[in-house]
């Protein structure tokens, strides 16, 4: 297993990039500790797959280095890097048995049969595949096949890193829960460095200890799920993570106090605002908004039932503000007022949280 370091990594698909926008991946430096669980999260086209392919060696970076345990591997082939990868669609041999599929990566590297047998049975046990080892893989369902793909990724003990590229996309929701918790459990048991690429916030947040949020070829924020939820550094993170995402409202800040549509709003960081910015915004998650006797006057536009809670859409000064109301609680009709939880209401300047930029 290895510690992974990305140092000033840049990548362009053009042969002679000259401008910033020629780069699909713009200058990334990161340290990933040995044995950690990491997620790369972002929308389609944000550069997460490019980054994954650079780490696995399918692409050679235009600039910068990739280090495994301090050794530069930027120009090594995928085989030399010694990694395992699990893809979106199951990659298995239909004609082989489950056992032989799991054994394949080991035999391929010349592992002795005694060791192969031990490792295969170990991993099969962890994935609840022990009873089906003799079956042919062809008759399995999509999730059954993907389980074997996961097993093939996890079976070798000598890999530097295991990478997952949207491994649960083709799996039904109720089976996703099972496979995701299985994967998390396996990580806690075998403690190998794992990198999980996804556009699905639930998968990223529940799998990883550290989530790297990307947009437009850049890392916007790296943090624990709690950091990303409670203190998004950029409005993009606030919007992208959370369902529904953070409410973002235009505001003014004067004398350390924020106002939205003429109403003063207590915030966690308005007093840290120093200069003049082009754009000032308030960010508050729907989880931290509630109905109140006084506060910001709103019209209630829509109530959507999500089962255990309802998503209420309100409107104030032609801006939409959403809030979550738990099942069973009353929702006023027509007009009401909103209160924001001060500790979780932040001011953003030009997209970035006030007071955090060096």
């Amino acid at each position, binding site marked *: 297993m290895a510690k992974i370091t990305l140092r000033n990594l840049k990548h362009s698909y053009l042969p002679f990039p000259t401008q910033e926008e020629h780069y699909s991946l713009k200058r990334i430096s990161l340290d990933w500790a040995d044995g950690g669980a990491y997620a790369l999260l972002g*929308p*389609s086209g944000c550069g997460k797959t490019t980054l994954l392919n650079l780490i696995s060696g399918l692409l050679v970076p235009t600039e910068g280095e990739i280090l495994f345990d301090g050794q530069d591997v930027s120009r090594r082939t995928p085989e030399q890097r010694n990694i395992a990868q699990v893809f979106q669609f199951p990659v298995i041999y239909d004609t082989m048995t489950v056992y032989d599929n799991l054994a394949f990566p080991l035999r391929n590297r010349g592992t002795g049969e005694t060791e192969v047998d031990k490792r295969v049975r170990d991993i099969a046990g962890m994935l609840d595949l022990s009873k089906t080892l003799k079956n042919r893989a062809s008759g399995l369902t999509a999730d059954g096949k993907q389980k074997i793909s996961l097993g093939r990724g996890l079976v070798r003990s000598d890999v530097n890193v295991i990478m997952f590229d949207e491994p649960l996309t083709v799996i039904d929701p109720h089976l996703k829960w099972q496979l995701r*918790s299985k994967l998390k459990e396996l990580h806690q048991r075998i403690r190998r460095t794992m990198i999980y690429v996804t*556009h699905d916030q639930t998968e990223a*947040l529940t799998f990883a200890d550290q989530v790297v949020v990307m947009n437009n070829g850049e890392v916007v924020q790296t943090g624990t799920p709690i950091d990303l939820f409670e203190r998004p550094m950029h409005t993009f993170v606030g919007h992208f993570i*959370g369902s529904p995402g953070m409410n973002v409202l235009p505001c003014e800040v004067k004398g350390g106090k924020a106002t939205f549509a003429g109403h003063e709003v207590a915030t966690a960081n308005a007093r840290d605002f120093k200069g003049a910015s082009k754009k000032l915004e308030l960010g508050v998650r729907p989880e931290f908004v509630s109905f109140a006797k006084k506060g910001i006057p709103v019209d209630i536009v829509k109530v959507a*039932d999500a*089962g255990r809670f309802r998503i209420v859409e309100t409107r104030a000064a032609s801006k939409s503000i959403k809030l979550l109301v738990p099942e069973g609680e009353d929702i006023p009709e027509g007009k009401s007022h909103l209160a924001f939880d001060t500790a979780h209401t932040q001011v953003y300047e030009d997209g970035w949280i006030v007071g955090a930029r060096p």
Partner: protein
Amino acid sequence: MTLELRNISQRVGANTYIHDTSLVLENGSFNVLLGTTLAGKTTLMQLIAGIQKPTTGEIWFKGRNITRLPVQKRNVSMVYQQFINYPNFNVYDNIASPLRVAGMDAAEIERRVGSAAELLRLTPMLKRKPSELSGGQQQRTAIARAVVKDSDIILLDEPLANLDYKLREELRDELPKLFQGRDAIVIYATTEPIEALLFGGNTATLHEGRVIQFGPTSAIYRKPSDLLSAQVFSDPPINTAKISKRGKEIVIFDRVKWPAGRVEKLLPDGDYTIGIRPHNIGTAGHGKAVGAIEGRVLVTELSGSESVIHCDIAGKTWISQSHGIHPFDVGSNAKLFVDIDQSLFFGPNNEFIV
């Protein structure tokens, strides 16, 4: 104007894809077919569209038997999970294609394409080819093509499944608005309970080729007709266990005693199955009747605002979903609390009782 499926079934050789099914869908309604892969959602849609013919039974529309009517004569639109557009047409021509086939005049086509593009936020992309669009834009184009003509029936087969999470959220918000007040029957297939809930309208829960239950979405979610319907409509999966109710108590796992709460008076003593949705079992007690249980933690997933704890309780995996951050070590013991008044009770044949 209603669509009626009368005792239809679909068999191919020895395989039955749809078992005896009857459904009545009203004009102007939004109907979700909810079920896992292979539950029969797509087959049902193809039968309604006329792409397949039922083995038995009849399909009636506007008081007419249309069972043998071919797809071309049914005035239906369909959107698939895979984005399907004409690759050599630009967005405008893609959206306009069904109108041109229908021989509509140019001015009307222009008006309709313009308004469909506006609704689906495609106006700046009208001149682009599908290959120059993102996945979300491609699927919007396919949806625009489905809504641009006055179809009697609009079928959407997991249209958001291949889209990014955030795009899915946006389109989930927009789709019902798109169909509001339309003179059509909309049928939407999905594997995701949350989509059915957020769309509102009606939901049919499906399992292995059978419609288990059909009705207003919120009623189906809160009063499932049986355990299977509740299982289809629960994400994360609903926790279940056999219990016996004795007076003021519920005995679960043959040893743990819980207060019966509201079912003390509602249920005669006897054996039942309890169904507890993950958000009704947490690290703190809620409600008037709280049942405590201990389990061995298999894994904890923290999402920033919520904790999902997977526990082994008497050999079964239970899932708890609660507010806040509650990290538990793997293998440790967690004490969890069940809101009994929010739990569902099923009888000996898994039929819903309370």
